[in-house]
Structure formats: C-alpha cells, structure tokens
C-alpha cells in the first residue's frame, strides 16, 4: 500500500518535462545560436572535428556534473558566496576533465590547450548554474546540463565539420576530397582555418535557424 503511494508521488525519470530539458537547448534555447554564450571557445576549437568533439564532450560532462552537485548543495549555499562555491565546483571538475584528456588523448588535449581550462569561464556553465541548478532538483538539473552541453556541442560539431571539410579537405582527419579535384585546380580555402570564418559560419547557422523557426523571429 505504502509503496504504491510513494510511486504515485514520484515523477517518472523521463517525464515530458525532463525530456523538454534535453530537447529545448538543441533548438529553441540553444546556448550558442540563441543565447549567444560560449562563442569564444566555439571559434577557437572548431578548426577540426576531433578537438571539437572532445571539447563538446568535456563541456557536456562539466555542465552536467556541476549542475548536479550545485543543485544538491543549493539549499546549503549562502546566496552571498554562491558564485565562489560554484566556481570551486566547476574548477574541480574542469581539472579532472583536463587531467583525463591529458592521460588518454594527449594530442587533442594539446590542440585544445587553454580552452579546456577556460571551460571554467564559459558563460554557458555559470548561466545554467545560476538560472537552473540553484532553483531545481538534482535530476532535472543534471539533464538540463546534459541538454545544454549537447546543444553547445551540436553547433561546435556543425561548424567544425564545414571548417575542416573546406579548410583542409578532411573529415575527422581523413582526406575526403578526391585527389583529382586538387589536380584540376581545387585549392583548400585558407580563410576557413582563420577564426573570422568560424564567426561567419555561426552567423549563417543562426540565419538558417531563425528563418526556419517562427518562434525565434522578432516582429
């Protein structure tokens, strides 16, 4: 009897609300293209696919677990020092991720250089902690973190795909543009490797997204 009651009160793990937390950051509330957060690293690590994917994973892990930890602690954190507490948690997680990357994918870790460390200052993290984790239960916060990390990663991977394809003619390090193309005069686009083109690519993604989604269009 008692057990049944408990089950009724408890929300299912993946209710519609929780699923929405996963889905919204992919499009309508995308951290990069709609909220325009985390642009700096999106420009810096998207020259190739591999670093972009690793960066996306790192940010997803850090966002998810910092959201989880802060949400679990939220009732005990005095609001005057909450930013410091958040920073300590995020910094600890970032160091763990950084060490893991150095241990297992050293070459990628070298390419990402300071940008793993700079996840601490990524606006997406602080934004999610302040806007969501401080006011919600651990499980939804965790899902929210994963959703936002994936939303960020999605844009990163799209940008990196185009930059690597047109900038160096490769896909995750494998040359995909046929040799014959180069022989008849095709040249890789050097501008794609430079940061301005990353900004323009993100701009084009925003353009396409806005013209396709009615909710995002200003009157």
């Amino acid at each position: 009897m008692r057990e049944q009651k408990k089950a009724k009160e408890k929300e299912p793990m993946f209710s519609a609300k929780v699923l929405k937390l996963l889905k919204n950051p992919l499009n309508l509330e995308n951290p990069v293209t709609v909220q325009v957060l985390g642009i700096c690293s999106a420009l810096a690590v998207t020259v190739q696919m591999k670093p972009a994917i690793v960066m996306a994973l790192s940010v997803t892990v850090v966002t998810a677990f910092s959201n989880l930890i802060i949400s679990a602690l939220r009732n005990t954190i005095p609001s005057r020092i909450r930013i410091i507490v958040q920073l300590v948690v995020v910094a600890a997680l970032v160091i763990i991720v950084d060490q893991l990357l150095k241990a297992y994918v050293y070459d990628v870790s070298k390419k990402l250089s300071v940008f793993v460390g700079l996840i601490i200052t990524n606006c997406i993290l602080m934004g999610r902690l302040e806007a969501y984790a401080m006011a919600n239960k651990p499980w939804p916060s965790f899902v929210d973190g994963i959703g936002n990390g994936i939303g960020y990663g999605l844009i990163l991977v799209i940008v990196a795909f185009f930059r690597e394809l047109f900038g160096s003619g490769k896909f995750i390090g494998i040359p995909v543009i046929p040799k014959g193309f180069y022989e008849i005069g095709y040249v890789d686009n050097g501008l794609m490797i430079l940061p301005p083109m990353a900004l323009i690519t993100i701009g084009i993604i925003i353009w396409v997204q806005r013209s396709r989604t009615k909710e995002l269009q200003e009157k």
Partner: protein
Amino acid sequence: MKSLRNYLDKIKPQFKEGGKFEKLHSTFDAFESFLFVPDKTTFKGSHIRDVIDLKRTMSMVIIAMIPALLFGIWNTGYQHFLSLGQQADFMQIVGYGLLKVIPIVAVSYIAGLGVEFIFAQIRHEEVNEGFLVSGMLIPLVMPVDVPLWMVAIATIFAVIIGKEAFGGTGMNVFNPALLARAFIFFAYPAKITGDTIWTGGLTKGEGVIDGFSGATPLSKAASGAIDQIPSIHDLFFGFIPGSIGETSKLAILIGAAILIITGIGSWRIMLAALLGGVTMTLIFNVFAANAYMTLSPLTQIMMGSFMFGMVFMATDPVTASQTNRGKWIYGFLAGLFAIMIRVFNPAYPEGVMLSILLMNAFAPLIDYYVVEANIKKRLKRAAKLVKS
C-alpha cells in the same frame, strides 16, 4: 526593339498575380526594366522626382570604369607578349586580353546576379541594379590569372555575406567588390600574391625572356629594389603588371573626371584620400628608415591600386561617410592607412584594400560624431542667443 517589347507585353500577364510564373515575377521585372524604361509612374500626391535613379547612377559608374577596363584588356595582352618577348600587332594583343578578361567579367556577373535573383525571389522583392557596379569592379581588381571558380565563390560570398545578410543594396557595411577580393586574398593567398600571377599565362622558366620577372612595382618596392620601379611615365600610362583595372592612372583619372562631373563620386573623398596618402608618404620620408620609406609621394600614389581604390571604391556612396566633413576624415584616413599598411606590412604588398575595408567599418562612427558635433555647436549658439 519593337518585337521585343511586344513579346514582353505578351508574356507579361503570366508573371502577374495568379499567372503561371507568378513566382518569377521579380526576375521578369528585372529584365523588363533592364531592357526598357519602366512604364510605372506615380500619379497621386506630390513627389520630388529627379532623372537620376539607381539605374542611371549605376550606369554612370560603369561608363566611368570603361576606360580602365579597356586599358586593362589591352595591357593583359601587352604584358603577355612582353613576357614571351614576341612581337604582336594590336589585334593579337587585344584578342588575348579579351580572351582572358571577358570570362572573369562574365563569371562575376553570372555568379553575383544569380545570387541577387535568388534572394529577390525568396524575399518577394524586385531585383535592383545594385550589383551592376560590383560585378564590374570585381574583375577589375583581380589578377589576370585568377581561377574562374575562385571568382565565382568570392562573388557569391561577397554578395551573400557582405550584402544580402545586411539587407541588400544600400544596406551593406562593406564594399562588396573589395570583400570579394579580400575573400580570395585570405582564402587562396597563393593565387593572388606573388610575381607570376599578374601576367596572363606566365610561368617561371620556359619561353619567358630574360629579365622579365612579372613582379609588380609594389613587390619590387617591398623587396627593397626601389631602383627597379618603372618610370613615372610607365606608372602613369600603365604599362606595368598589376590587377586588370588598376594599372593605367590615365584611364582612372578619366573615370574620376566622369564621376566628379556627374556628381556621383565624391570629390571630397578623392581629394582627401590623396592628401592622406601624400601626408603619410611625407612622414615616411622624414624617417626614411628603409628604402621603401624614401619613395617620393608621386611614386607612392602612382604605384599599385591606390588611385583605383580611392576613385572607385572609397567613394562608394553606400559604404562611405555621408556627411561632408565625415567624407574629408574618411578619405584622409583611408589614404593614410593605405600607404601605412603598404609600407609596414611585409605579408601584404598592397594596403589599399584593407585600408578601405577598415574605413568602411568606421564610416558610421565618423558620421555619428560629425552629426553630434554639429548638434552641440548649434545648441551652444542657440543658448548664446537666448542669453543675450
């Protein structure tokens, strides 16, 4: 002509609302107004009307560029036969030039107008004449040997990112033609720098006569060989390698005269740019730290695309400053930076493109402060009047 008119009238209803090709109505409109003076007139209310509309303005600039284009075609052939050490008559020279230049012009127009037409269809707007000038400017600032597909990609990039993203003709921040050149410059640096690209069909080695390097005056100056810079006479008439339209200063001056007389190009910007360039050169002359800095102002102005850029690109009414005082500042700084970048930057032999793009970005700011200063001045005057 009349049969064409009749034909257009016959097919016109199909492009009207409800017609078979309703979606293509802006394409039809564009062709109609390109071929004939549109018959749409205002009939209600009072309007101030001038004969000079967008189409007329653009056509005037095109006419002003024709001397530079024609000379560019001739010079392309001339440089080619010079490099081979062959004698060629006028027809051969022009024939070779046409063969090289016309495809670039065609590709630029097809790519650019294609994008314009597509956007006009999507946005249900009329196609306007905005691209006519850019389409002619782009070939004029290209080296002869540039691959055509690069011209196409650069043009498409410039029109989409430089113009349509900002809202189309008249709304762009940067000059589309310069943007196209900047795109090739950064995307495919090997194809737009160096010594071999400025002369049609030039390869290092076989068939080329001794002593012909194909280097532009600018690259000679940048490498410190200032005694090899061609004479002022050659620089002025344009018997030198360089981008298609930039070599002959005489042709550019004719264009400048047309622009100034018709009131389309701003003489303030041109004069201010000249002053800016001369000022910077004189400053360099004072320091004279290397051979490049000792060049006389006349040589600096005559070299490279300084004149071409300042006459045809800096004066673009959309991207330049709008206020008269702003035009002086804008032009002066454009000229100043052009020479400064040219001398200081070892990576890019020419600074005019970067300088004008930089000033394009600053033009609205300059205008803002000019207007603010004027408001302040008038407020002060009004306050004085009230007091007394």
